[in-house]
């Protein structure tokens, strides 16, 4: 059976790259891992919002032409879970034996716009017939979740400060992070209220980014520094549920025996971090008080590394790959097995990608 390897990765610092467009960023991330000897069989672009943010479609063809690659190209869009979906697609294609190499490029530009306009972009994740038309924003769904969680488990707002506090502490060491500063708990708990009780530090700073992953079958020998095997990928989806993430639980249950030592999770909101951790085994209502017991989001997660939309999952994979190959330039985790949990904004779809050092 063909094994699927990650043989290289690259990423740009998540930032407001005002001088560069979507394609410029994608080229920058890609050229880091391309070389003359490498034949790319498929180019997959992970991007969620280009129609609204850059007035662009046909991204994968344009990127392939810019890189001088003439091959199978397409873009994968599944909201903020696009990264997990793109990696899954490349994985199954290589696993099938039909192709040997895939370049997966995540790219997004959310940094050009004022807040209310980005809210409109992100609100496309809500259903069109009612929720989007009614003017709702996803932050309100998260606020309702948070409030009902606080009531159910009898915790106050301070409980949630643990998450952004840890993320900013981790991200301060990550040179690729957007907000590279530590934040004390008082700053977090007195930050602007977005949708009561959800505060600014519970959300994710929207910015631009591009990251790339080189995936191959195990018979492709490249002179790269470090290989990681994709041990398995599972996925699931569910409708919005206030206090549970069935999509994460079901995808995780399909791969329970993997037992990862390092985690990268999609913490779009602090409450999502708690719910994800609880769906994969931490005690309900207590997960954010147990963060010392796990190695999670050493990148700084969406809070500190930042939130580059549909490129986020590719960043997560690149970060885990660098951790497992001992190349990550920030805070180092220890272990040989890592898991990436790539979800959409509200956790209705999930891709669980298990990585193992070769």
């Amino acid at each position: 059976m063909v094994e699927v390897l990650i043989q290289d990765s690259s990423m740009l610092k998540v930032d407001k790259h005002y001088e560069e467009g979507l394609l410029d960023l994608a080229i920058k991330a890609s050229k880091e891992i391309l070389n003359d000897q490498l034949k790319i069989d498929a180019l997959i672009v992970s991007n969620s919002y280009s129609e609204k943010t850059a007035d662009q479609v046909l991204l994968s063809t344009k990127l392939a032409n810019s890189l001088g690659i003439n091959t199978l190209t397409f873009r994968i869009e599944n909201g903020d879970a696009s990264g997990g979906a793109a990696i899954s697609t490349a994985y199954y294609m290589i696993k099938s034996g039909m192709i040997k190499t895939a370049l997966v490029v995540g790219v997004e530009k959310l940094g050009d716009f004022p807040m209310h306009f980005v809210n409109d972009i992100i609100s496309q994740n809500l259903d069109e017939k009612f929720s989007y038309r009614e003017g709702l924003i996803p932050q309100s769904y998260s606020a309702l979740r948070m409030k009902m969680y606080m009531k159910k488990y009898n915790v106050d707002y301070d409980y949630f400060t643990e998450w952004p506090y840890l993320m900013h502490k981790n991200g301060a060491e990550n040179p690729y992070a957007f907000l590279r500063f530590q934040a004390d708990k008082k700053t977090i708990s007195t930050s602007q209220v977005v949708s009561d009780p959800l505060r600014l530090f519970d959300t994710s700073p929207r910015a631009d980014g591009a990251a790339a992953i080189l995936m191959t079958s195990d018979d492709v020998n490249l002179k790269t520094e470090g290989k990681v095997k994709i041990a398995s990928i599972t996925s699931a989806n569910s409708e919005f549920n206030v206090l549970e993430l069935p999509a994460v639980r079901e995808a995780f249950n399909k791969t329970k025996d993997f037992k990862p030592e390092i985690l990268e999770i999609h913490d779009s909101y602090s409450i999502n971090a708690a719910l994800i951790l609880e769906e994969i085994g931490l005690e309900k209502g207590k997960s954010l008080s147990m963060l010392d017991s796990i190695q999670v989001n050493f990148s700084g997660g969406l809070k500190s590394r930042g939130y580059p939309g549909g490129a986020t999952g590719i960043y997560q994979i690149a970060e885990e790959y660098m951790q497992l190959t001992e190349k990550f330039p920030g805070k180092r985790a220890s272990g040989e097995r890592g898991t990436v949990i790539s979800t959409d904004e509200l956790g209705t779809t999930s891709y669980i990608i298990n990585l193992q050092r070769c």
Partner: protein
Amino acid sequence: MKVFPPQLWRNKETLYTLIAGKCNKCGNIVFPYQEFCNKCKSFNISKIKLSGKGTLISWTVAYQNRPGFEKTTPIYVGYIKLDEGIEIVAPLTDVDESNLKENSRVEATVRKLKSDSTNGLIEYGIKFRLV
């Protein structure tokens, strides 16, 4: 022009009268209406008009908004259990915050959501108010 009449017209039953789908096989209610039951996978669905009456389970007040909704910001948003048994997230209106309580009774009412420009198309939709 940012508001296109067909987009509003085709959603009129959802946005003005809370029309949902009820599965004739398993009783599952889906809102907004669709011609398929996502529980038992039946195509045997009837249109029903939700009563618009329900109970407020929780609420939040949003200080951020989207283009076109500036005038109604901050936006109160309720998590509402309708009497038909389904739970929805929807805007609240006519709110006096001191009167908002868990388990308050609420009812649907049609309100202006936004307008395209000062003399453009107006979008209407359902909001909920305390009874």
